[in-house]
């Protein structure tokens, strides 16, 4: 049983089929890349897995459990975290607060407990702050921990998006173009981090355009074009696949 199994997923927007019978898997401890030309349906697939979109056909299974059509917050509470292409950070909240919010599924203090400052509030705050400090240190965000995120440079903001997702202590991490807009070195650092996280057992599915990153840090590549899976395999094999070259460069080049 794989960590994530997507089987025959079809999504239609009006008459347009954004995804057409897509099947793929993500294994725990592996980095899987989702690549393909613009409009191929990569983000759509992430949205289906994370519960933002409901497929018209097909199934999404997490650890063998059918989660097709579950609402977003329930999917997240299973330990499926994600980032967004347009970041979707929380305005002027600080970096530390973003990570504290990220721990929502791991804590249980209720509204009444918080208002009355009952013991659970203090216990969970203490635990959460400790865990958040550790994560901040690991991602090199300690010195900007108390900055509002919209005061940070773009590269750091992207990292906060990843950090918020990691704060869920997820089993599956979905990343939508984590290196878009980053410099070469920054992208390299993200790649190394993903490799490290995978070795600790995390399953990663990322949408990525950075070919170098895909080749050096990904274990498995799935290629989408016009909502169809046109190839999948280890990076070296996919790179030389005639269908993939055709999809990216047009028919003549193939």
């Amino acid at each position, binding site marked *: 049983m794989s960590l994530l199994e997507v089987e025959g997923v079809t999504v239609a927007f009006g008459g347009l089929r954004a995804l057409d019978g897509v099947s793929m898997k993500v294994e725990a401890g592996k980095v899987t890349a989702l690549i393909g030309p613009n409009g191929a349906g990569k983000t759509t697939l992430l949205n289906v897995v994370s519960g933002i979109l409901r497929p018209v056909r097909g199934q999404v299974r997490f650890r063998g459990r059918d989660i097709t059509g579950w609402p977003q917050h329930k999917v997240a509470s299973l330990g499926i975290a994600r980032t967004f292409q347009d970041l979707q*950070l929380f305005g002027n909240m600080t970096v530390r607060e973003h990570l504290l919010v990220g721990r929502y599924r791991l804590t249980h203090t209720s509204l009444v407990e918080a208002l009355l400052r009952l013991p659970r509030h203090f216990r969970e705050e203490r635990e959460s702050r400790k865990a958040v400090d550790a994560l901040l240190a690991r991602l090199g965000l300690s010195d900007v921990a108390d900055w509002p995120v919209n005061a940070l440079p773009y590269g750091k903001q992207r990292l906060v998006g990843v950090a918020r*997702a990691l704060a869920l202590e997820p089993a599956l991490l979905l990343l939508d173009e984590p290196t878009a807009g980053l410099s070469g070195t920054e992208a390299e650092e993200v790649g190394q981090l993903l490799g490290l996280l995978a070795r600790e057992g995390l399953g990663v599915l990322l949408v990525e355009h950075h070919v170098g990153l895909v080749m050096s840090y990904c274990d498995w590549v799935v290629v989408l074009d016009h909502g169809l899976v046109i190839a999948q395999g280890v990076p070296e094999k996919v790179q030389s696949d005639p269908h993939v070259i055709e999809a990216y460069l047009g028919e003549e080049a193939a």
Partner: protein
Amino acid sequence: MGLNRWGFLAFLVGIFGLGVLLIPVADALPFLTRANLVVFALHAIAAMGLTLVMGFAGQVSLGHAAFYGVGAYATALLTAKLEWHPLLAMATGAVMAAILAALLGRVVFRLRGHFLAMATLAFGLVFYVVMRGWDSLTGGNQGTGGIPAFALGGLRLDSDTSMYLFLWGVLMVGIVAARNLIKSRPGRALVAVGASEVAAASVGIDVARAKMSVFALGAIYASVAGSLYAHYVTYVSPDSFGLLPSLRFLVISTVGGIDSVWGAPLGSAVVVLLTEGTREVVPKFVSGATGSYEIVAYGLALVLVLLFLPRGLAGGLALVVQRANEWLRGRERPTPAAVLEEVELR
């Protein structure tokens, strides 16, 4: 607000003291009386609930006065007719308001933006019409009276001064509760929902439930204020809970600043002074002026604040304090907030 725990407590004590000091001088100051102080505190408590709804969950409500009315009518009917204990009546009103808000939230939070505002407006109007029409229970247009003064043990709130002191204490408790909420798991979740619903849901927050709970909490603030209002005036009628009062709460919250726990008291002070000011000044220039022309002043205040202080008076004051701080310290290094401002200017 950038205050840490001790700064916050010191500020709270300072504000409380300032409020108490107002009592002996109130009658001597322009546009201010002890009765106005009571109105100011009542509005601040009720509007604080709306501030939570708007500021911390990003939801607009145009029907907030209805929850104020739920508390007022619950107290009026339960204490005057059934002779319940004031606290029990107040608690009953608060529970009813919370349930009503949660039910309403279930329906209206499927809507967004203008539609949400219209739905809350409709709810406020329905409440008004029902209170006016249900003669046998509410006394209809004439309203219902005979409400005893609020009494708790040996404490009896039968003067402006005692009522105001009590309300001022309740307001402080309300501010502390709101602050406790913001600095906690459920409070941060609410702020997150206000900033990005899709991202909030992506960390496991049930967005619809979060909105419902803040709506219910906001209704409780309004209902408690409404109960105390009923005890104070001893008589309630539908006109105190219609569209104009809802708009007044909206103006208080917005002018004061919806992202600060100090916003509602600040906004309430401005609105009370504006109301009294226009009532006293306008007839001097326009002979025979009648009607609710204070609404013009509200509108003007709202436009000015939105134009020049989008974060309200509380946000504006925070900026002034911060600038003064930087000036005193000579600005050795840019603070995050200063960088933030430069980023925004770009």
